[in-house]
């Protein structure tokens, strides 16, 4: 059975790019436009969460903390999408419970390699 990835980003173009790459690689993708939307969609089974940091309503860090505090997704891997200019955010993300990160801009192969690293 293919694994399901929840892709969270407020930019529709990034979501589209990510979804296309993941679907082509055989993953099932659920899209969410911000943290709140993501939390709502986490009610169905998800194997990995891929999230942007800066988003309206609930941002990436709060989303990460909320997921770690939940019972269902405490151990679900979370990948953060960050920009190179904010190494401090990386540490913040780790402290919040993120599994790993991916620096924007990235190539599709990088995205898949990183996902394989945490999903196996």
């Amino acid at each position: 059975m293919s694994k399901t990835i929840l892709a969270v980003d407020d930019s529709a173009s990034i979501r589209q790019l990510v979804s296309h790459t993941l679907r082509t690689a055989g993953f099932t993708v659920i899209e969410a436009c911000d943290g709140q939307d993501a939390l709502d969609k986490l009610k169905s089974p998800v194997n990995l969460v891929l999230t942007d940091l800066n988003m309206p309503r609930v941002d990436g860090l709060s989303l990460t903390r909320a997921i770690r505090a939940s019972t269902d997704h405490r151990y679900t891997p979370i990948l953060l999408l960050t920009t190179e200019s904010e190494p401090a955010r990386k540490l913040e993300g780790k402290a919040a419970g993120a599994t790993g990160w991916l620096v924007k801009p990235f190539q599709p192969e990088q995205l898949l390699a990183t996902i394989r690293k945490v999903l196996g």
Partner: protein
Amino acid sequence: MNGADGFPDRRLAFCEEARDLLTDLEAALLQLEADPRDQETIGRVFRAMHTIKGSGAMFGFDDVAAFTHDIESAYDLVRSGRLAVTPRLISLTLASRDHIHHLLEATVSGTAPDLAAGESLLAAIRETVASGGEAPAPVTTARDYSIRFVPPPGLFERGANLLPLFEELRGLGALTIECDTAALPPLDQLHPGHCYLSWQMRLRSPAPPEAIRDVFVFVDEGDCLTITEPAELAEPTAPTPEREAAAAAPAARPTPSSLRVSATKLDELINIVGELVTMQARLSRFAAQSGEIEIAHIAEETERLTSMLRDNTMSIRMLPIEATFARYRRLVRDLAGELGKEIELVTEGGDTELDKGVIDQIADPLVHLIRNSVDHGIESPAERREAGKPPCGRLVLAASHSGSQVLIRVTDDGRGIHPARVRAKAIEKGLIDAHAELSESEIFALLFRTGFSTAAAVSSVSGRGVGMDVVKRNVEALRGTIDVTSTPGQGTVFTLKLPLTLAIIDGLLVRVAAQHFVFPVAQVLECLEASTADLHCGRREFLEVRGQLVPLVFLERFLRLSTGSGARSQILIAQTAAGHFGFVVDEVIGDHKTVIKQLGPLYRHVEGVSGATILGDGSIALILDADRLAQSAVDEAGRRAA
């Protein structure tokens, strides 16, 4: 040092060492053929030659030393990159290896060696060296890393998964992983979500250290990973004299320390341990009867130690089958060359361990099966291309454990066996009746009958019709079985099922009349109980077991024992070569680890008994051979019907 005549023992020791070196040399050469630029393998070939030459001269094997000298020189050129490894050079070196073997044996047995053959070989090698070859490009250097990974305890709470990381690391090169569980707290203090484990890894890889850090990038918090800087293993530059000396020193070979012991001594040890196991059973029995706590205690401790000693002794005789498999590489290479075929030999499960006795006795039957697959199974490249297969045939030798047995499979992707053709041949040879109705497996079983051969043309490699029956006999002598399955056009699989060891079997102790017998537990499917009167009523020969009729063998009657008086009988339903059979006994007593004692030569024609064992009370129980018993029952029924 003049050890020529004064030290026969040392000379023999040299011979043993040299034989090992030659085996290793052969493996290295075949590996080199697959990867001609591997500096490490070239080094192995050179070192083997170097040691044979050096030790040979020391122990008075002058022919060996003189002959090896020129080949060593050639590989010195290869090592320094001045001579390329070509298939021709490999073939010549393999032939030289055989010649060295011949020289060794000739010196030991005192016969005159064939020096002319050596001369022509050397001439050919010199010519190859003179014609030279392009120097190989430098190889990438592999490095040995030592990696220690102590993950942060909260790792899993961030959703991390370590397995993919180890897999990723394995992708970089040869990896061994050891898990360190020292930090595990007692259960009441253990937090189920924390990671208490750490890992020590050894990686042999050409990758730079950064690549290794990259693997762990998400889980490393700065101090989790210790990578010990590697020492370079392969040198692309020409070796200096010091390096050369270091490479040639035997200490440079990372072999675990071991001791050479003669097999007879091991056999003696096994015998003594067998006696001890028997004696210990007596002690346990006595202790149980005496009712004294102190003695029971001692007996229990002795039992534990004895079984440890027994398992340990058995494991000494266990050898990985790899060495045997390695011998066949050469066989397949040479046979394929002779027959103009392309064949790739793949071995799987070479680390499967088997009793030395079994390995020794299985080597020849396997040679037969391999010859058979190479000759009859795998087609010529042209024929294969026509059939839409890759021109290079594939022969797989696989070993694996299955309970207390080892399975060895010889699989080829050749033309397969056509049941109809086998049947026609068997009718022609008068082995079966023209109207006999046979299942596919029964037809394949005909292949193992004496005087059967389907080869249209008899070649020098195999196919004289002596062989498969001998293979079957040899395998059965080891208490093993052989099976064949085949799909026409796709290939054939021969499966050998062998016992792990010859010395001990798991047995089921049973009583028939006043006597005890041991039944091999591996064949027993289930034990049933029935009233004796019921069974004897009307001389029933069959029992219905869950809708299936199972023929019965009344052991009491069969073994001509006086009739027992029990009201109930027990029936062992067993899987035999002749199908399912029910063996009727008076009582099933229980499990018995059976140390097998061979019956003397006087009894070797006794049917239905494969050995004997000594029971705890000192009495003797015969070990029954279910296959033979079933076969005799079938034969007897046939005679009665006729």
